[in-house]
Every structure is written in C-alpha cells, then in structure tokens.
C-alpha cells in the first residue's frame, strides 16, 4: 500500500468517527452559540457536559463500532470514560485512540477464547469479559493514557497557538490545499482541526480553525475561471459544478479541474492563504464544524457578528484564486476527454469510486485501485438472504478455498441487512441498485448466473494475484 493510500485510509477512519456524529456536533454548536449570545444560563449549562461527555463518547462509540460492531462500541465508551475523568481537557483525540483500540483488544480476546466457551455460557462469558476488560481499560486510560493524550493535545494546540500568535495561519494553506486535492482533507479537517477547533470554542466561543479547510472560496475561484475562460464542455460543467460546490459544499467537484491542470494548485494555495489572512485580520470564527463546506453551513455556524468578515475572507480567497488561475485556464485547450480522464484519475487517487465523477462521466467505472490483497470478508446478498445468496456464497467459497485462500470468508445475507462489515458485496444484477444505495463504499460485483458466473473466477484470480503480490513486496 502506498503512503498516500495509507494516509487516506487513516484519514477516512478518523473522519468516520466524526462524520456520523456531525448532527450532535451541530446541535452543540447551536446551543453554545445561542447560550453565549443570549447569556442564557440554561443553554450554557449544556456546553461543558455535552462537549466533554456526549461528543467524546459518541466519537468513541463510532470508533469502537467501526472495529467490532456494537460490542466494540460499548467497550470503547467504557474505556473512554476513563480518559474523560482523567483529564481537564476535551478528549476527542483520546477517544479516537482509545475507542478503536479497546474494541480491537476485545475482538482479539474474543477470537482467542472463541472455541473454548462451554455451550450455554456464551452470554455470561461475553458479558463478563466485556465488563472486566472494559473496567480494566477504563482504569488504564485514566491513569496512563490520559496524561499522554493531554500532553499530545497540548503540543498540537501549542503549535496552533504559535501560528495564530504570529499570524502564520495563512501558511497552513500550503498544506491544506494540496492535501484536499489528494483527498487527505478529512485527515486534516476532521482529525486535527475539528478537535482543536472545538477546544478553542469552549475557551473563546469560536474558532478560526473550522474555516481553514471548509472555505469554499478557492475552489469557487477555480470553477469561475473555467466558467468565464474555459471552453466547450469544461465551461458547461464548471457552471453546474460551482453550484454544487458553493451551495452543496461538496468540494470534490472541483478536484478534477485541478488535476487536469495541476499548476492550478498554486492559485488555490494563494486563495487559501488570502482567505485565512482575511479571517485572521477580522478575527472571525465559527462556533462549530461546518461540514460539508457549503456557504450555507458556514453561515449557520458563523459566530454572531462575524458574518461580514467571513464572507469577506471567502470572497477575497475566491477573487485571488480566480484572477491568478485565469492565465492557466486560458491556455487549456478544450478537451472533453481531458476532463473525463481527470475524473478517472481522481477516482484512482481516492482509491474508490467517487460520487462526484458521475457528473463528468455517466459510464460505470469500477474502482481501479481497489486493494484486493486486503479482502477478508465477502458478502453475498439477495433479497431473502437464504436461497440464491446461500447458493452463490457456497460456490464462491469453494472456489476461494480451492485457490488456497482459506482466510477469506464468504457469507450470505439479505440486502436489507446491509450495510455489513465486508470488503466486497456480490449480488444479482437486478438487486445492485439497492445494494449500492445501502453500502456504496465497498467493491461491488454484479452477477446474473449464480452457478457459473465468470465473475467468480475473475475475483478469485484477482484475490490470488494481489495476495501473492503483497507477499513478495
């Protein structure tokens, strides 16, 4: 696995702990903003407990669930409780560490004793093990882990403080803008900026950090440049893309335009720096995460009285990127293929199919960089989850074992039980739309022949080749 895809996997894990909980983050932001603005004591009483307990535990729960289902999320919450009590600061980063870690420990323990539990004692032993390990981890978290996380958070916060004190925040654009194009934005946005930003909100009532990555200005600048100075297809697509980008907050939509002309990264950085500079100048901030980075979400989350400064920053960023990218965009010959291939390239960068690329190309593309070596679980889905899928799963499993890939497990289930923990979903062609809707982020295989689908051998070969490849590496 390349460094980039590792970093992406890591980033998407971090963001997967935050994204499912964004509703709670926003609710907290609204309560905090209103509480502070109105000076209302009732509303203010939410701020601390909700931040330190609820949001932190929600992150832990999502992290634990990712690793080991609901059982994982329970122990994650218990262990994280130790962190919360063991420190004065908000333990987001700690929850991101202890949540998945404690679920992983329980998972390992379970698999160790799996075959040694006498029949009839499963429930008792499962509850006892989760309880005892959970209590132990909570104490360890409290005594040993919390201090480490506290000092780590302090270092990160000190770094941010340093940047803010010397007005160096605009420089972060040098990292943030290219990272966005490489889909590392979540690692930065949700992993680092969100926890630090929330800490700042509880101290100062708002934070500029939320604006750094979510500022739609630079991306809009690029799209406007294409709208006015691009030609043919790029011009038309840029128009629709800018609406989706600016109001929908889906920044991915402008990435292909940059990948098509990588030099545009410089106008983006300049725009990002300008935006952050203006934000710093007016000392503005958001009271919570603005995700997705849409002008609407930003307006809602803007701290009272900061709207003008925020809009000024976004507009300034947009104008700077727009003006500086004109010469590059002008030079671009219109080429429909170029945009499409950039969209494909984007999928490869992301390592999975992007919901955005369909805007550029309606043809179905399978993810090209899917990592077959990491496949452990294959779900075979049909409507009832017992007949056709069981049949197909049984045949596919036999083929996989025959190929010497014993550690890959094929199981069957009903489409309505998706999403489930798996790397690949196989299903009948006529059920694929439902499957994709329920679990879009896995590798999909559609078949029409349960018994002799050519896709079985194709998959088995891919699995075999990739495993051999990863062994020789």
């Amino acid at each position: 696995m390349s460094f980039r895809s590792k970093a992406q996997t890591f980033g998407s894990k971090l963001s997967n702990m935050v994204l499912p909980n964004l509703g709670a983050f926003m609710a907290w932001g609204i309560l905090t903003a209103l509480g502070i603005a109105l000076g209302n004591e009732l509303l203010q009483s939410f701020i601390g407990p909700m931040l330190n307990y609820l949001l932190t535990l929600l992150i832990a729960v999502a992290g634990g669930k990712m690793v080991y289902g609901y059982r994982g999320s329970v122990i994650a919450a218990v262990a994280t409780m130790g962190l919360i009590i063991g420190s004065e600061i908000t333990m987001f980063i700690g929850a991101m560490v202890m949540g998945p870690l404690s679920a992983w420990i329980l998972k390992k323990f379970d698999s160790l004793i799996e075959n040694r539990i006498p029949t009839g004692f499963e429930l008792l032993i499962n509850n006892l093990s989760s309880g005892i390990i959970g209590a132990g981890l909570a104490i360890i978290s409290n005594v040993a882990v919390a201090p480490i996380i506290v000092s780590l958070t302090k270092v990160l916060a000190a770094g941010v403080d340093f940047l803010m004190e010397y007005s160096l925040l605009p420089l972060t654009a040098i990292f943030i803008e290219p990272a966005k194009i490489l889909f590392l934005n979540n690692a930065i946005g949700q992993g680092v900026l969100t926890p630090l930003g929330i800490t700042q909100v509880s101290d100062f009532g708002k934070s500029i950090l939320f604006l750094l990555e979510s500022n739609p200005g630079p991306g809009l600048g690029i799209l406007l440049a294409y709208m006015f100075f691009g030609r043919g297809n790029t011009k038309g697509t840029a128009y629709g893309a800018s609406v989706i980008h600016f109001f929908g907050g889906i920044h991915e939509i402008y990435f292909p335009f940059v990948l098509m002309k990588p030099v545009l990264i410089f106008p983006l950085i300049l725009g990002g720096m300008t935006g952050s500079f203006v934000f710093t100048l007016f000392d503005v901030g958001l009271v919570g995460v603005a995700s997705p980075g849409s002008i609407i979400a930003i307006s809602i989350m803007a701290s009272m009285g900061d709207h003008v400064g925020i809009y000024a920053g976004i507009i300034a960023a947009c104008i700077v990127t727009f003006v500086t990218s004109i010469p590059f965009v002008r030079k671009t010959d219109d080429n429909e293929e170029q945009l499409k291939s950039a969209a494909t390239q984007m999928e490869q960068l992301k390592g999975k199919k992007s919901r955005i690329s369909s805007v550029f190309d309606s043809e179905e593309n399978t993810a090209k960089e899917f990592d077959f070596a990491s496949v452990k679980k294959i779900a075979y889905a049909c409507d009832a989850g017992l007949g056709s899928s069981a049949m197909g799963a049984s045949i596919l499993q036999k083929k996989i074992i025959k190929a010497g890939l014993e550690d890959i497990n094929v199981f069957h289930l009903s489409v309505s039980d998706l999403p489930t923990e798996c790397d690949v979903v196989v299903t009948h062609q006529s059920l694929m739309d439902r499957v994709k809707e329920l679990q879009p982020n896995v590798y999909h295989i559609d078949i029409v022949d349960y018994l002799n689908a050519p896709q079985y051998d194709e998959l088995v070969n891919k699995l075999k080749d990739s495993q051999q490849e990863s062994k020789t590496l």
Partner: protein
Amino acid sequence: MLKEMITAKDIEIGLQATDWEDAIRKSSRRLLEKGAIEQEYIDSMVNVLKENGPYIVLGNHIALAHTRPEYGANEIGLSFTTLNPPVEFGSENFDPIKLIITFSATDSNSHLSLISELAGILGDDEVMRNLFESTTSEEFYNHLVSALDE
C-alpha cells in the same frame, strides 16, 4: 442430507404453466400440502419476483423459488418441478426456465449444507441435461441421487 430429504414424491415432471407466476404457484402445491409453507409464502415469492425481477433464476434454465422465512415458512422444504414446455421468467440470459426448485427454510443458516450440496450438482451441465430430460419422477430422482453420490 439432500438425499435423505428428497423422495420421488417431491418431484413433479412436465408441469404445464401459462406464465412464471402460474409456474411458481403450481410448483409450490406440494410444499403447501406437506405443511412446510403457508399460502402467504407463495404470495410472497410471487411479489418478490414482481418487485425485484428474476433474481431467483440461478443460472442455465433453473429457478430457485423462495422468499424470506417470516412469510410463512414452517420447516425446511424442497421440491423439484420440471416445466414442459419451458416458461419465460424474464431473465435475459437464462430463459426459458426448465426446472423450478421450490424451497423454504425457517432461518438463514440451518439449511446451508443442503444448499451447498445442491450447488454442487446444479453447476454440472451434464447432470442438468439428464434432469431436464427425465420423463418420470423416479428417473429424475435416480439421476439426482447418483449425481449426489459422485
């Protein structure tokens, strides 16, 4: 396990049906009489197919008629019905259907070894040709059993 479950009585040869719905309804009579399924199960099989398209068509000319256990499945049940003339199920690749396997189960796991045995022979073209061409349920049964023994 499949061998122990099936007798020649679970096999019907040369059923005439007007369309796929008729074929499914008629092929399910045996399981209904045995009490393996309720009428609701049959209705559900038909509805699921109407909703989802012919996903129960397994491969060459075979359909595995079934639905979820909660729609009136009382026990594991299996019956084989060959269709003469074959019936269109709306499957682009595998029409017409010559064999319907009507199937019921009470949960999604208890019948796995059964399904797995079945999977082993359904993929074998020669066995299937013998099954399609059987003229009596005894002949069908013998072909089935000898294929299972192999």
